């Protein structure tokens, strides 16, 4: 906080940096900071270190004021903010308050100059304010953040009596009305923080201080303690039953942990950076002594612990504030409607509580009944209910878990469209879900360290359930209709689908193939829940196969029959396909905004309808390729009815490939014909049109030449376009028709300008290779604004000869960086490999590029030696471009 008041009358000082009044102070403070900085090179006990540092700074400051100065009776210097709270990092602001009675004394003016300027020049950040007691009173009334900043002050120098008077009147000022107001402000202020720092970007890279469950929450509890009890320690709040001893312990542990993290973070970045970004996460994890293990990397283990602490803080703060609010209500004797519900439970206004908490021990099934009741009456959970639940978890044993009535209640909750997510979340937070489904405990707070998965695994599972409910009950957006309504209407095993949504990732965290492991774990769950043999089998199938559709849609040519057949064989019947389809969509939507887009949706829909057609085959006569392509030809010709070109088009249609006819719409085919005709006059023809969402489709026709696709990817990259997919067709006449789909344009307001530039670049690049080189040279210069580094996994190249009859499939997994696609396509060109089809997806920073290729003669690669060459050349190209 920077409040510079009363020092604008700055006098000119020629005498350099050392203040006259404080000859040794600055040197001493700098030494202390340097020592502390050195200490923080290793992990230090967080809170203790921060307190010790603050205390020694304070003591030095106090000592440096000579008696001559302090004997003055009309002003005082006070440490406030983090300094007053006695917790500082070496990069923290030193918050100081210079307080005087009525008129600013001359001597204080001089002291401020010397001290504050001295501290500035010593590299300390000072947040200081100078005010008279009456002015301060007004500032505090007007600004909540100033009010909180002065709640935990420490006396430094000057008139002790002035300090004591100010202090006691500051606290006395909080009468009933102001306390209420204070609490309202606190809740409002916290709400604002949650809104800002609960944003998705802050979930993966949290803010240690202001973030959800960050240090600020702990400060808030302390402030409240100060206002209500004149004591900011958690212990005092426990005595007043505003915190439980267990909560106090959690808070203390979390407090210490966050400070350990914060000190390391500041030490690493060299400044007051409280945003825990990816690159620092890894370094902090190493500094705090986390190690890689088969369960996951060090940084994942570290972040898992981080989320555990912050979610405890968040929850405790929430309950704490509710308790305070309740105190106010009971003091005001506001009548709350009370109702007794079967259980027996007590509904106090909006909050549900146990009527007889002792009964739970005897009949732990009450716990599940309690959750069901909360869902039924749309009630909040009473702040003490959490404790009752937690205290009784150990009594909820196997007998209760397998109790048919309990299971039925659980399924009621799971299938409740409005309540499922909310109630499951509380079940999870109180630990009840882990007791009811012990399999769930393993994924609690489990982190997937990439920019793709926005949520921890447990959160993702709960969100998948929520997405499924939303898909069922909310109308689809109009961009792309997936036909979900009909599928939900036909659903036969609704409860199995929702169970699968809740459990599909429980195998995560033990290395690869989590789907199979999860399916194995689900067997015992199914048994406990008393599912029928058919349902159990279905549940395991869904969990085992939950990646099939997404993988096939994104990485395989959907025009090819083989992957469709494979899916059909694995899935085997239409009910299963429908459930898998719903699960896949919900799973993607619950992963994060990067994982679900119109492109993926349209691919999934296409795959779904094709596999579905395959599975219906016995009801439908099989359409053979020839008949379907004839049908397409007919439609194209009918579009051109009456045109003089019809005859020529008919001849042209006979020369193009089946794959072309079957993958393009009749309208597009007709357009392509005219595009190719343009080539009589020019060497290049380009047509662009908007596609679903904000995607665009580009058709490029030109005379085929080796390396053409690499040129195209180069130009599009240079113009900031991101390619999602490419279909490459070569005509008998030697003309290449490349059809590409690109993501949102960099400037959607000026598409025409952009496409003119692209057309011009393509023309020039086709004429001379050096044009493209120059164009890319500009792009390749490292920019100051380079993306910050993100978690990386090792590059991988997988070559598959099985998946397609006509093409070798090369899958490349790498991390996203400028021009990576151009590097890959260029390497393939140099290897004399022809790309026929490409699917490019960039989920977050992870790139998955899939190419259907042949050699120059149109044959598959087959030869293992060739595979080895391709693999090593590609990996080399990726390393060079890094």
């Amino acid at each position, binding site marked *: 906080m920077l409040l510079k008041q009363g020092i604008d009358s700055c006098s000119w000082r020629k005498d350099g940096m050392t203040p006259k009044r404080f000859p040794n102070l600055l040197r001493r403070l700098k030494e202390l900071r340097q020592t502390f900085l050195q200490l923080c090179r290793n992990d230090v006990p967080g809170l203790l270190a921060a307190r010790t540092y603050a205390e020694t700074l304070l003591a030095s400051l106090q000592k440096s004021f000579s008696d001559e100065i302090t004997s003055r009776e009309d002003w005082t210097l006070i440490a406030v903010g983090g300094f007053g709270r006695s917790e500082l990092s070496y990069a923290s602001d030193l918050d100081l308050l210079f307080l005087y009675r009525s008129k600013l004394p001359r001597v204080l003016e001089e002291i401020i100059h010397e001290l504050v300027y001295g501290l500035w020049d010593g590299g300390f950040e000072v947040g200081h304010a100078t005010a008279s007691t009456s002015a301060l009173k007004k500032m505090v009334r007007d600004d909540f953040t100033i009010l909180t900043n002065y709640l935990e002050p420490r006396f430094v120098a000057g008139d002790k009596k002035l300090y004591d008077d100010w202090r006691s009147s500051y606290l006395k000022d909080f009468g009933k009305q102001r306390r209420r107001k204070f609490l309202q402000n606190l809740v409002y202020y916290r709400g604002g923080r949650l809104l800002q720092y609960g944003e998705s970007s802050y979930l993966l890279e949290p803010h240690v201080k202001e973030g959800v469950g960050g240090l600020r929450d702990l400060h808030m509890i302390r402030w409240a303690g100060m206002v209500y009890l004149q004591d900011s320690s958690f212990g005092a709040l426990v005595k007043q039953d505003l915190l439980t001893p267990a909560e106090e312990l959690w808070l203390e542990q979390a407090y210490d942990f966050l400070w350990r993290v914060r000190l390391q973070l500041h030490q690493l970045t060299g400044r007051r950076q409280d945003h825990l970004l990816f690159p620092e996460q890894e370094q902090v994890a190493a500094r705090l002594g986390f190690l890689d293990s088969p369960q996951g990397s060090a940084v994942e283990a570290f972040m898992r612990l981080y989320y555990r602490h912050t979610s405890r803080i968040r929850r405790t703060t929430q309950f704490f504030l509710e308790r305070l609010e309740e105190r106010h209500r009971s003091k005001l004797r506001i009548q709350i409607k009370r109702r007794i519900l079967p259980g027996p439970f007590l509904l106090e206004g909006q909050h549900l509580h146990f009527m007889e908490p002792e009964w739970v021990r005897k009949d732990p099934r009450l716990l599940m009944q309690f959750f069901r009741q909360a869902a039924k009456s749309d009630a909040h959970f009473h702040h003490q209910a959490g404790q009752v639940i937690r205290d009784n978890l150990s009594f909820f044993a196997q007998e209760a878990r397998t109790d048919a009535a309990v299971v039925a209640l659980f399924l009621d909750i799971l299938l409740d469209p409005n309540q499922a997510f909310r109630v499951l979340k509380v079940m999870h937070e109180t630990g009840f879900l882990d007791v009811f489904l012990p399999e769930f405990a393993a994924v609690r707070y489990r982190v997937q360290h990439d920019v793709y998965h926005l949520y921890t695994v447990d959160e993702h599972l709960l969100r998948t359930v929520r997405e499924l409910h939303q898909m069922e009950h909310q109308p689809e957006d109009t961009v792309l209709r997936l036909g979900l309504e009909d599928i939900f209407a036909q659903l036969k095993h609704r409860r199995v689908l929702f169970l699968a949504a809740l459990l599909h990732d429980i195998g995560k965290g033990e290395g690869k193939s989590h789907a199979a492991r999860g399916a194995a774990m689900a067997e015992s769950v199914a048994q406990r829940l008393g599912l029928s043999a058919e349902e159990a089998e279905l549940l395991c199938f869904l969990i085992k196969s939950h990646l099939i559709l997404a993988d096939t849609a994104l990485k395989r040519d959907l025009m090819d029959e083989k992957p469709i057949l494979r899916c059909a064989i694995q899935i085997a019947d239409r009910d299963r396909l429908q459930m898998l389809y719903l699960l896949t969509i919900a799973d993607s939507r619950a992963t994060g905004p990067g994982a679900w887009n119109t492109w993926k949706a349209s691919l999934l829909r296409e795959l779904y309808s094709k596999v579905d057609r395959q599975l219906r085959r016995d009801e439908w006569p099989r359409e053979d390729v020839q008949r379907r392509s004839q049908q397409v030809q007919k439609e194209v010709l009918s579009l051109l009815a009456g045109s003089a070109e019809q005859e020529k088009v008919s001849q042209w249609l006979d020369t193009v490939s089946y794959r072309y006819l079957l993958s393009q719409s009749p309208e597009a085919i007709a357009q392509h014909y005219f595009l190719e005709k343009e080539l009589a006059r020019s060497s290049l023809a380009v047509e662009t049109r908007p596609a679903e969402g904000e995607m665009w489709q580009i058709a490029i026709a030109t005379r085929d030449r080796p390396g053409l696709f690499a040129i195209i990817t180069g130009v599009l990259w240079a113009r900031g376009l991101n390619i999602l997919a490419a279909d490459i067709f070569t005509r008998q006449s030697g003309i290449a028709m490349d059809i590409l789909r690109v993501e949102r344009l960099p400037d959607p307001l*000026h598409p025409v300008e952009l496409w003119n530039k692209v057309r011009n670049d393509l023309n020039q690049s086709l004429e001379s290779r050096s044009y493209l080189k120059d164009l890319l040279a500009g792009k390749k210069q490292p920019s100051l*604004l380079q993306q910050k580094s993100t978690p990386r996994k090792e590059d991988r190249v997988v070559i598959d000869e099985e998946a397609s009859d006509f093409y070798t499939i090369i899958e490349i997994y790498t991390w996203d960086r400028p021009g990576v696609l151009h590097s890959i396509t260029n390497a393939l060109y140099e290897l004399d490999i022809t790309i026929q089809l490409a699917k490019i997806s960039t989920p977050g920073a992870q790139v998955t590029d899939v190419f259907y290729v042949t050699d120059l003669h149109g044959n598959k690669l087959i030869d293992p030696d060739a595979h080895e060459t391709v693999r090593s050349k590609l990996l080399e190209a990726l390393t060079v471009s890094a």
Partner: protein
Amino acid sequence: MKKVEAIIKPFKLDDVKEKLSEIGIKGMTVSEVRGFGRQKGHTEIYRGAEYVVDFLPKIKLEVVVPDDQVAEVVEAIRHAAYTGKIGDGKVFVTPVEECVRIRTGEQGEMAL
């Protein structure tokens, strides 16, 4: 050291200032300027006659930062000043050779 100079819409100044102080930027210089870019000003009809209003009011914000903070600052400005409409503005980054704090004579990044 680099100077980051941003031309933004006037009503976005508070957002940008807040975002910058959030990431620890301690000082900045702001001026009211007039100009136009691709939007080419806008045309208004005044008492039946058409006047071309070429120059639109904008805010120019300047801040000098150490090299390693440039990316963060530019990203923060973009994030805070973005509306997605024409006339959102531009950000320029230029090298700064030297910097001196007048009061103390400190030089280089120390003086920022």
